[in-house]
């Protein structure tokens, strides 16, 4: 029994959350979290690196101005949530029990959705005992999540708008292409949502005839049946809403069966290194709207800073850079104390500050913020050319 108690005590000590900061050296603590394990590990690695790079850039320029006019450095941490809902909840409760003033994450939509559910739905609602902690999401992209809670904010691209203008642009660029055939990773919430609620409806709005869709699962290995149906449909545009692993699998099968198409469209999340790593040859020409590309000096500088710390800036992780810069501005405008006693007030001030933002600065230009806590980000269309992502068209110009 004694041994049991000792073990229990040891567990308790080891699980204890970091102690509160010394009032003398105040820092603004920002807690990142996301997936560092499993197939999405690269996302966590990138976001972590980008956040550290952004904090370094801010601190090199003097840090963040607090309410009393003093300057404090930003300190970032990063926790792994394994892309698992329960672990994501534990991580956020842990962060919320520390003196971090805001959380940045998560990677996966299936973590973001439950996470936003445990937050207070309406800020200041006494009857709602949900967690009162601002979360600013860089990666989890499934449509319409931030409206779950007023404490949840996202800086992820608005897929609905991006694909609407993409299909309109394609209609004018390729007037001979009349029909669309979809491919959807049916058991993954984000890709499923993006095909049925975004690509399918938006392409129809742009005047395309939707000829149907091929469905497969996240970890499928055999796409012959689906691709045969795709070939039979003979559509001019093939739009694939799937993550890199199956996108590559399907593209390789399409090459084998010699599926002919005029335009190939991909899922936002697939405009990353992973797709090119997996199947650069077959992905050649695939067009994807993305909210990040190193097209101006700011964006190049951010990408270089992240690369120096071992991460790659892509549409997801670059959002974390923007988030850090937005947070710096919001903190300076709201004027937080960053003391051990002011944590709750600071968090509320940051939430209110984020909620009132109408526009923010982004790496590609001005970002509009909606009342629901979502962002409408500038974007460009990229395509895979010779094994890299090249900008095909900038709809803003």
């Amino acid at each position, binding site marked *: 029994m004694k041994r049991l108690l000792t073990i229990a005590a040891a567990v308790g000590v080891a699980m204890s959350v970091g102690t509160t900061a010394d009032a003398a050296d105040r820092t603004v603590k920002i807690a990142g979290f996301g997936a560092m394990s499993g197939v999405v590990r*690269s996302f966590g*690695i990138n976001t972590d690196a980008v956040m550290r790079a952004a904090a370094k850039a801010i601190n090199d320029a003097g840090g963040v101005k607090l309410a009393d006019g003093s300057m404090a450095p930003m300190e970032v941490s990063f926790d792994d949530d394994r892309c698992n809902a329960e672990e994501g909840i534990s991580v956020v409760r842990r962060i919320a029990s520390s003196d971090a003033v805001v959380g940045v994450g998560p990677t996966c939509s299936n973590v973001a959705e439950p996470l936003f559910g445990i937050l207070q739905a309406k800020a200041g609602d006494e009857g709602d005992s949900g967690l009162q902690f601002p979360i600013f999401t860089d990666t989890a992209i499934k449509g319409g999540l931030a409206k779950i809670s007023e404490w949840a904010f996202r800086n992820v691209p608005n897929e609905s708008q991006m694909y609407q203008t993409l299909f309109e642009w394609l209609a004018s660029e390729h007037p001979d292409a009349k029909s669309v055939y979809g491919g959807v990773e049916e058991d993954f919430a984000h890709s499923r949502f993006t095909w049925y609620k975004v690509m399918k409806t938006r392409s129809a709005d742009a005047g395309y005839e939707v000829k149907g869709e091929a469905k497969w699962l996240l970890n499928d290995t*055999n796409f012959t049946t689906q691709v*045969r149906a795709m070939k039979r449909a003979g559509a001019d545009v093939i739009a694939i809403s799937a993550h890199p*692993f199956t996108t590559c*699998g399907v593209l390789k099968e399409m090459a084998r*069966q010699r599926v002919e198409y005029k335009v190939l469209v991909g899922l936002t999340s697939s405009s990353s290194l*992973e797709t090119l790593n*997996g199947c650069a040859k077959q992905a050649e020409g695939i067009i994807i709207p993305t909210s990040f590309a190193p097209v101006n000096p700011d964006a190049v500088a951010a990408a270089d800073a992240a690369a120096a710390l071992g991460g790659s800036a892509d549409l997801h992780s670059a959002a974390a850079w923007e988030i850090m810069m937005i947070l710096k501005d919001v903190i300076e405008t709201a004027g937080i104390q960053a003391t051990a006693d002011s944590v709750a007030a600071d968090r509320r001030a940051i939430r209110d500050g984020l909620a009132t933002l109408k526009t923010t600065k982004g790496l590609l230009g001005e970002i509009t913020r909606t009342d629901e806590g979502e962002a409408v980000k500038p974007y460009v269309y990229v395509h895979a050319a010779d094994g890299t992502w090249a900008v095909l068209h900038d709809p803003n110009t």
Partner: protein
Amino acid sequence: MADYWWDVIDPIQSVLDGMMFGSIYALIGIGFTLIFGVMHKINLAYAAASIGGAYASLVAFQILSAPALVVFLCAAAASGVIGYIVYICCFRFIPEHLPLATLMASVGMLILIDEVVVHATAGMPEPYPAMFDDVMIDISPFWIRGDLLMIFALSVVAMLILLYVLYRTRLGIATRAVAQQPSAAQLCGIGQQQTNAVTFVITGALGGLAGAMVGASVGILSPLLALPLTVKGLVVTVIGGLGSIPGAIVAGILVGGFENVFQYFRGVTERDIYVMLLLFVFLTFRPQGLFGRISTRD
């Protein structure tokens, strides 16, 4: 060709593709069944080790740019080594009368292998070489994928080699002796531990080949592959009859074919429900599986 013909040709084509792909399930099923036959235990880390071996062979592909066949053999060799490690870590030192402990240890190993792969590759999909993947054999009205045919052929060769080893060599006789009567085998001077270890290496190599074949058929490797292969492999093992190698072969091809039939007619979301139903049908009407004997031992 009239449109309605496609309604006949497409399902048949799907079944053909599925059956060729099913040869991979057969290889995994053989691995489960062989270990079960010899040790009466399940090695849940088996499919993960197979994918792990395929990943290890990427070294040969990416750094040495070896030809596809050499890469496949490297996968088999690497998986054989992993098989031995799995044996040492999960089976060798855990008392024989505690099958649950070995089961759990192999689950731990499954998680560990997957995570090692993830750490080595950051979870990125890695391209994997294939043979004849640009060949489509046209036997009108059907098409046969060159790479799938190659996979099918390689799997058949591997199975024939395995059967030769089991039935024509001393090693095989020892393995089968331990499977049938461990204590009697020991009395005849056959080392049980040694035979078990050899079984793990052989099945590991077979699994590595299966892992390489999966990689070759999709064209990419991902840690995502391990879990579905484990489930399908176990289903194949049971349908084929525990401990029966011909059973695993037939069941693997059967499951691969059925899977595609259901996918064609019922769609991908319901496909696996029907595969599970197929399993239930077997368990209800033929619990010993296709070729299994009704066992009197537990």
